């Protein structure tokens, strides 16, 4: 079972490692790493030919259709897409049918994942029963069953009192509360960023205030309760500024952004392109640039795919009727590497957002190449350019917002517990 991966650029933001060397795997764990890691004799050797070895990615927001809508995506198909993208840990969202709001359902996800998925799967459980925004779920029992955080997924908790109680109660378990910051009243019938483009297209807009109103409210409640609070995705410059200020105040706040929001802006919905219909919506170019700056300076903690598979029937609709979401778990790394190449964001900063930082927030092992850690890693050519072709992605659904876009960075292999789960 022992293997040596030689002649690799080893990059591990958690340990400040970036050097040419070898990675030695023994019994599914990392035995040695670095330029001084000697290849033991008689070990099967894999020559990485100068390619990079990264910690396996931790994608903190993945929607699947299992249980209930397996035609969109199963845990198995999502995990295959993940492996092809170098993602070794997927955090699944509770918005399935039924909603994951009960310990038995968390157990169901874990068992299905163990039996069918090729990467690690950790579910977030619902924050409120049936994601109805009213009554809390059993944080204690759900945590015991393996839920890593609590969220209503693609729905905001609108009731401030419910949110206050959830944040208060979560303190007992040091649970992470994850919010989808979208005020449903302010959103109303809105389907894209509120702007002159929305006006021209005759589409109802979603103002930035729909996001900031929820964040502002929740931050007050975090001050009141002291609970750990995470915004799943922010989409605006204003939100970056708000989170930055909250962190300076020392509040236990973190936030994420989707890789798609770092690459596209509202102009990508021109011609009613429903593949770019996302929640939160793609906003102005200045928002995109502010989000990149937020990642670069650490205001934004994690980058997620927000992977949300939708079948063609759900997307081939008039824009207002079409489903939200894009697939993305397979292109998460390539998307970020493209930012590194195009926008000059430091590589270790970007990689930390998809490895060590999400693992740390969720209290998970992994996201590093530390000696003794589980051997979850990806081998990638960080430079290789390619064009995203939605039809060849491994997800069961092909709704890729970045279809036909040029990206840079190709995953060549992916390992979980030292075993190859993907090879190009």
């Amino acid at each position, binding site marked *: 079972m022992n293997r040596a991966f030689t002649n690799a650029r080893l990059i591990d933001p958690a340990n400040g490692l970036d050097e040419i060397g070898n990675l030695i795997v023994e019994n599914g764990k990392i035995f040695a790493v670095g330029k001084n890691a000697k290849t033991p004799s008689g070990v099967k050797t894999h020559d990485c030919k100068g390619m990079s070895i990264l910690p396996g990615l931790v994608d903190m927001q993945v929607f699947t259709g299992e249980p209930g809508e397996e035609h969109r995506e199963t845990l198995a198909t999502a995990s295959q897409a993940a492996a092809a993208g170098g993602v070794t840990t997927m955090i699944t969202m509770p918005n399935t049918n039924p909603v994951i709001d009960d310990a038995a359902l968390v157990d169901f996800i874990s068992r299905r994942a163990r039996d069918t998925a090729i990467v690690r799967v950790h579910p977030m459980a619902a924050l409120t029963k049936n994601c109805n925004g009213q009554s809390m779920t059993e944080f204690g029992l759900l945590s015991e069953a393996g839920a890593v955080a609590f969220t209503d997924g693609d729905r905001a908790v609108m009731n401030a009192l419910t949110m206050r109680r959830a944040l208060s109660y979560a303190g007992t378990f040091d649970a992470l509360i994850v919010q989808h910051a979208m005020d449903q009243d302010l959103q109303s019938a809105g389907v894209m960023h*509120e*702007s*002159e*483009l*929305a*006006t*021209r*297209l*005759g*589409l*109802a*807009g979603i103002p930035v205030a729909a996001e900031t109103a929820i964040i502002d409210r929740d931050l007050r409640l975090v001050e009141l309760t002291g609970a750990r609070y995470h915004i799943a995705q922010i989409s605006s410059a204003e939100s970056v500024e708000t989170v930055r200020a909250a962190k300076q105040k020392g509040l236990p706040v973190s936030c994420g952004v989707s890789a798609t929001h770092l690459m596209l802006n509202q102009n990508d919905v021109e*011609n*009613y392109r429903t593949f770019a219909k996302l929640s939160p919506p793609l906003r102005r170019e200045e928002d995109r640039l502010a989000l990149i700056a937020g990642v670069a300076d650490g205001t934004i903690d994690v980058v997620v795919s927000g992977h949300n598979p939708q079948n063609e*029937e759900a997307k*081939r*609709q*008039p*824009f*207002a*009727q*079409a489903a939200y979401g894009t697939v993305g778990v397979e292109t998460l790394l390539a998307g970020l590497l493209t930012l590194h190449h195009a926008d000059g964001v430091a590589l270790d900063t970007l990689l930390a957002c998809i490895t060590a930082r999400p693992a740390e927030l969720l209290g998970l092992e992994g996201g590093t190449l530390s000696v003794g850690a589980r051997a979850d890693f990806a081998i990638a050519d960080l430079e290789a350019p390619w064009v995203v072709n939605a039809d060849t992605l491994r997800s069961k659904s092909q709704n890729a917002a970045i279809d036909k876009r040029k990206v840079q960075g190709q995953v060549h292999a992916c390992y979980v517990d030292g075993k190859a789960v993907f090879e190009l």
Partner: protein
Amino acid sequence: MTSIEIKGAFAHRDLLGIDGLSVSEITYLLDLSDNYVDQNRQIDKKTSVLRGRTQINLFFESSTRTQSSFELAGKRLGADVMNMAVKTSAVNKGETLLDTAVTLNAMNPDLLVVRHGDSGAVALLAQKMSCAVLNAGDGAHEHPTQALLDALSIRRRLGKLQGLRVAICGDITHSRVARSNLLLLNAMGAQVHLIGPQTLLPVGAEKLGARVFTTMREGLEGCDIVMMLRIQNERMEGALIPSVREYYRLYGLDREKLAYAKPEALVMHPGPMNRGVEIDSAVADDPERSLIRDQVEMGVAVRMAVLEALAANLPNNTGEAE
């Protein structure tokens, strides 16, 4: 008029909006419409321009005047016209759209006139059709034949569009009529004022080339044309405006408010009117000032012109116009 000339003057398979039309294409359609106005006033109103052609009017939203206007236009050009009203529920709206497109396409229509409640729905449907598609109104996006008939009404009365100042008043946010008119009037060199309460004015309207006002007194100053929009019932009573009586007081067009515009200013309305809500009968029915009857007449002529222009570009056109 031969088909080859038409091709040069109007080179589009579909008419999905005013967006994308050039000044010469708009002028061409208006000139062609002028001829049909004259023809429609004769005893024999029929031609055989569309003889043998099948025109389907597919209306996902109910409409009396637009649908009958298209129906009359098609029949006067000699087409076989079929009306289809599709009842939609919120649940199966989109499903019905694409299913219907596939079904209709199999019937080999030549011209499909579509109205739908969702912005962009007509363009989506057009992708699935192999015939010419006319947008008869999609959501809050475009209603191109309305803008053309409004322009024709103005041009016939005042002789030009260039340099005129046109006020569009009312629920701009939800109005496809306002968007198509704004695009067309801007293209033709007119100046557009949008007037309404802030809750009914869309974000960024200034950037689309209009001046925006929240009072009739300011907005109507120097206007040659005052175009009133219908206010939908569901927008009233507290959601976007507090009440009908307050709306009428502030924005309802009566003689007093009309006096803010130029002394000879003309009044328009796409219909159907809510008398006593957005417009006073004394103004609406004044033959000296109201173009509302003209608009209905021009509607048929404009739709005949558009149908002819699109039919000329159909791939199997045999030049029956001669």
